């Protein structure tokens, strides 16, 4: 009997191939979208971490309270010593110093008079040390539009938008005006080694990237930095691990009564990031839930229609003396088999495409160029353990439910009425 039924499944493509394709497609979409949403959200968090918050960040307590203003007068002093302590206490993390400052960027003409001027957002990172991972982390090399990376002190990269607006060419000089750490007036001239475009207007607007040591000299910040950022060397951001790290550091180094004592915060505590992380987590969950429900309805209907289409066959089988219970049971077994095969194929395809997108990414830079939100221009999926089972929810359960519902009529109706309905 089992062989007889399997023959029927294999020969009747509308009973085997078609439902398997529909189930596989539904499961593929569920699995892939789950990986894609998760990947994009993770990338957005990661991008914030790379440019702004780190996985954890150390600043002075006073700086943390006024972080929106990037107050360099509240920067960390003795930063090399603190960084060394961090590196020895937490070797699984990479620690980097950064300085953030604001000011005016002045473009002189051939006589040294101001030709153009605009607001600037200065970021100082370690651009020149060979062992520095900052250039790679921030994707600076790939974001250079003209010129090259700074190769010696006194060189800087400026926003390509700014360069276009004020006709600044590679090799020209620009002067950054601002105030030093001590509140004195600061002006420091840089040679433009190249121009940058990250594809994000928040970063691109008036950006100037300089070497950390140049900034320390210009801003009178010897052995000082606005912040020290920490990144997990071998794993993505993990909020639970980061919380444990910040608690251990703060218990050891941070003194509530000393506003210049260091304070470590985690990515989730960075301005708005806690809300963002919660929203991201909920959004991913919601999107996956909606997708699972939608695909469940589609697959339920497929199962329902598949069984309804076979009512005539069920009628014949009843007439030949097969029990209703047996027909119902074999319909369910068949749905389970189709559901499992379809879910397996769909999961395999979904995970494969997600993995491909995780390793190669999907370049959306032309579409995301003018978006003000900090988001990646290359979207990547993320393969997660849940992807290996999430597709089986719509794939097997919904398919079986659809068939069970269609088969319920067989079970409940009077045989003669059913016999008539089955068009026998």
């Amino acid at each position, binding site marked *: 009997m089992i062989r*007889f039924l399997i023959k029927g499944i294999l020969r009747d493509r509308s*009973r085997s191939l078609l439902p398997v394709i529909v189930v596989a497609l539904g499961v593929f979409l569920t699995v892939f979208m789950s990986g894609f949403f998760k990947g994009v959200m993770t990338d957005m968090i990661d991008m914030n971490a790379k440019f702004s918050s780190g996985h954890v960040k150390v600043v002075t307590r006073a700086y943390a309270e006024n972080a929106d203003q990037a107050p360099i007068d509240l920067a960390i002093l003795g930063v090399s010593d603190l960084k060394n302590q961090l590196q020895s206490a937490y070797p699984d993390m990479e620690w980097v110093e950064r300085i953030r400052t604001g000011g005016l960027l002045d473009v002189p003409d051939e006589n040294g008079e101001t030709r153009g001027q605009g607001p600037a957002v200065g970021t100082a990172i370690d651009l020149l040390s060979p062992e520095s991972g900052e250039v790679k982390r921030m994707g600076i090399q790939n974001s250079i539009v003209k010129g090259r990376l700074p190769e010696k002190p006194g060189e800087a990269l400026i926003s390509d938008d700014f360069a276009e607006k004020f006709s600044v060419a590679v090799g020209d000089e620009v002067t950054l005006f601002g105030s030093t750490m001590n509140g004195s007036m600061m002006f420091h001239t840089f040679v433009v080694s190249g121009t940058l475009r990250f594809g994000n207007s928040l970063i691109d607007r008036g950006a100037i990237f300089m070497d950390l040591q140049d900034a320390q000299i210009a801003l009178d910040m010897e052995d000082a930095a606005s912040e020290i950022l920490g990144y997990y060397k071998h794993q993505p951001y993990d909020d639970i691990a980061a919380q444990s790290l910040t608690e251990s550091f703060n218990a050891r180094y941070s003194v509530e009564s000393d506003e210049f004592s260091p304070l470590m915060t985690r990515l989730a505590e960075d301005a708005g990031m806690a809300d963002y992380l919660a929203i991201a987590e909920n959004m991913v969950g919601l999107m996956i839930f909606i997708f699972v429900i939608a695909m469940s309805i589609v697959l339920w209907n497929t199962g329902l229609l598949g069984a309804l289409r076979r009512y*005539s066959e069920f009628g014949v089988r*009843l007439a*030949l*003396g097969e029990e209703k219970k047996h027909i119902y049971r074999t319909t369910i077994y068949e749905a389970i088999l189709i559901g499992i095969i379809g879910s397996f194929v769909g999961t395999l395809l979904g995970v494969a495409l997600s993995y491909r997108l995780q390793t190669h990414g999907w370049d959306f830079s032309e579409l995301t160029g003018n978006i003000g939100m900090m988001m990646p221009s290359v979207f990547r999926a993320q393969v997660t353990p849940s992807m290996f089972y999430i597709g089986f929810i719509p794939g097997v359960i919904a398919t079986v439910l659809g068939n069970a519902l269609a088969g319920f009529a067989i079970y409940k109706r009077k*045989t003669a009425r059913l016999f008539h309905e089955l068009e026998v």
Partner: protein
Amino acid sequence: MENSSIIKIEKLIKRFSVGKSEFTALNDLSLTVERGEFLGLVGPSGSGKTTLLNIIGSLDTPSQGKVTVIDQSIASLSHKQSAKLRNRHIGFIFQTYNLLPVYTVYENVEFALLLQKLSSSVRHKSVMDALEWVGLTDKVKSKPSMLSGGECQRVAIARSMVKRPEIVLADEPTANLDSKNSHHILQTMKDLNKELNTTFIFATHDEKVMKYLNRKISLEDGQIVKDEIIQHSKN
């Protein structure tokens, strides 16, 4: 051949609910069918032919009265017992053949035997015997879509006969066939009736069927209005 009562119907009433009212399909009907009869239920649409076939075939139950088929009271059978009665003792032939399209002729005929859990060698012999009765041994591997209407109905007859049932219920078996095929089918069933002493009960409008019957029961409004024994002259 032994002739004894195989179906006994006493004061059968069958009512169906139609909205809030009731429709009486069979009204105080009594009938006895002997083993080996070749019997036709004739009458206009709505006269109760198919309802009576359904009750005899244990696809439906009486509202009142008693129906005994092969010594089993239809009203008291469970679903399982009804299925067993159909599987072991009753064959069905339908107007539209109702062969399973993805299976071969052999597999369609074999299906009823699979439910009886017989060994494959017993099944094979029974299926080949049944196909020989209807003259289709050369079509065992054909699918129903490759057969003519007459051939399909012959497969349906083989399917109903393969388990050697005591009763075959045929609902308008010739309605979709031309004259030549109708006579061929009817002759096949008549031969099986004689050879195996199987009781055939037809529900039909078809005049071609009439000359093969040895008993004709006319129904009207759920009641028997005429019960005739037909004597055929021997050629």
